[in-house]
């Protein structure tokens, strides 16, 4: 990438950021109630304060761990079930209505039910699983049975054994699918985790800090935690991009 390309790549996000900050500042000026809508630099100052606190990093780390755990659980179960569903039409037909119901569940009702069933540490992970699982499962099954229908036909004609399909063919297709959809599902998982933490008052979490800021009407603090969350989301996406790059470079996953 030469200097001109780097400049072109950076210019649009910079313009977007400048535009966003300008609109924010104009709104804050017009509203003129810093308690309700603080200025952008006030939020940055609050974020700077947070950066010097150990509890900030602990909360971020715990939320990240819950996000990854929820996503990992959903991925493993969706992966295994999708493989069986792709291989057996009866399994697919049984799982389809279950997944459709899970996909239609209102997130809030799941969180409220989970509040009754689980302790606050597990609740966000459970909710994230319920949100991410149907999305992952549907993408996996669609990829295997529709996008690769001709490959499944080829396997039927060549009588490719079940264990080869299960341990070699499907995993290779699903790995490339996972690499494509993680970009959209992982940030969604993070959002749901934070929502769960807010309602469950999970200790050591971004969500509980947001809730405390709201209760104390510390809007700048609440926005600072929000900015931290957005940055965390970017970091997670960058990590996914790195993993994708490594898999491509090492020829493990071509796409």
């Amino acid at each position, binding site marked *: 990438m030469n200097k001109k390309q780097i400049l072109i790549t950076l210019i649009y996000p910079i313009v977007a950021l400048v535009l966003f900050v300008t609109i924010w500042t104009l709104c804050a000026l017009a509203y003129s109630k810093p308690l309700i809508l603080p200025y952008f630099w006030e939020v940055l100052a609050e974020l700077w304060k947070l950066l010097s606190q150990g509890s900030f990093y602990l909360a971020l780390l715990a939320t990240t761990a819950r996000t990854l755990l929820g996503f990992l659980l959903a991925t493993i179960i969706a992966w295994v079930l999708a493989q069986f569903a792709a291989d057996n039409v009866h399994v697919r037909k049984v799982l389809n209505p279950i997944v459709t119901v899970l996909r239609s569940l209102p997130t809030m009702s799941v969180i409220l039910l989970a509040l009754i069933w689980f302790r606050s540490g597990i609740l966000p992970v459970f909710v994230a699983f319920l949100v991410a699982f149907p999305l992952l499962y549907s993408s996996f099954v669609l990829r295997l049975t529709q996008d690769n229908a*001709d*490959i499944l036909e080829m396997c039927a*004609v*060549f009588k490719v054994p079940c264990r080869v399909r299960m341990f070699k*063919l499907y995993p*290779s297709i699903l790995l*490339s699918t996972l690499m494509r959809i993680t970009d959209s599902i992982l940030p969604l998982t993070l959002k749901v985790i934070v929502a769960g933490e807010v309602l469950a008052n999970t200790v050591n979490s971004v969500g509980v800090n947001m809730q405390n800021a709201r209760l104390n009407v510390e809007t700048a603090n609440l926005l600072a935690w929000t900015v931290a969350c957005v940055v965390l989301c970017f970091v997670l996406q960058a990590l996914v991009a790195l993993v994708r790059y490594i898999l491509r470079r090492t020829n493990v*996953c*071509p796409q």
Partner: protein
Amino acid sequence: MSTVTFDKVTFGYDNKQIFSDFSFVFNLDCVNVVMGDSGVGKSTLLRLSMGLNKPSQGQIYCPECSVVFQESRLVEQLTVFDNIDIVLHRAYPDKKQRTKIIVNALQKADILQYAKRYPQQLSGGQRRRAALLRAFLYPSQVMLLDEPFRGLDNAIKQSLAKDFLMWYGDTPKTVIFVTHDVEVAMTVGDYIYKLQDNPANMRLLCDLSTVDKQNRDLYSPYFNKLRQQLNNVCEM
């Protein structure tokens, strides 16, 4: 009986009857080329043979078959080597033996350097060559090819047709080769048929079984005349 036999087969899609009471026995251990207009049922004939479509009436006998589809149907996420490897697992459970067979074949086909590449890193011709090799390595009595060289330029078609003859010479089997291409048909065919009409019937256009496939001069007066005839009959 290790050839493909259609016995009073009836099959159709929604409003169109493709085969009605269709009976035909393909010639054993030779290359049966099937030509015909688009939509007449050539691909359906192969899908019925493979068992991917079931006839509404009648019976089809087809022993273990290998296939080359119109598209290469290589798994994009597997290397060329693995694409061949997955279809050989059942016939050769021993990994060492399988690897030896694949490496030897890739070497003979002069594509060993592509063994670790993914299909999207190959040209159209290389992908078809890999698909052709996969079908030849799969132990079967019958081989079905559905316009395997479609969309390629003439030089690559002829090169692939020669590869086909080379591998076919090593492992003769009953072949049903669907193509629109007269040159390819004359290069590889022992019998050239035309699938025609609706419902379809099979008509023998030419018997080349006595002409050695390995040494055909497609520009000899005999083949020039045959080319003209086939072009006229198939209206291509």
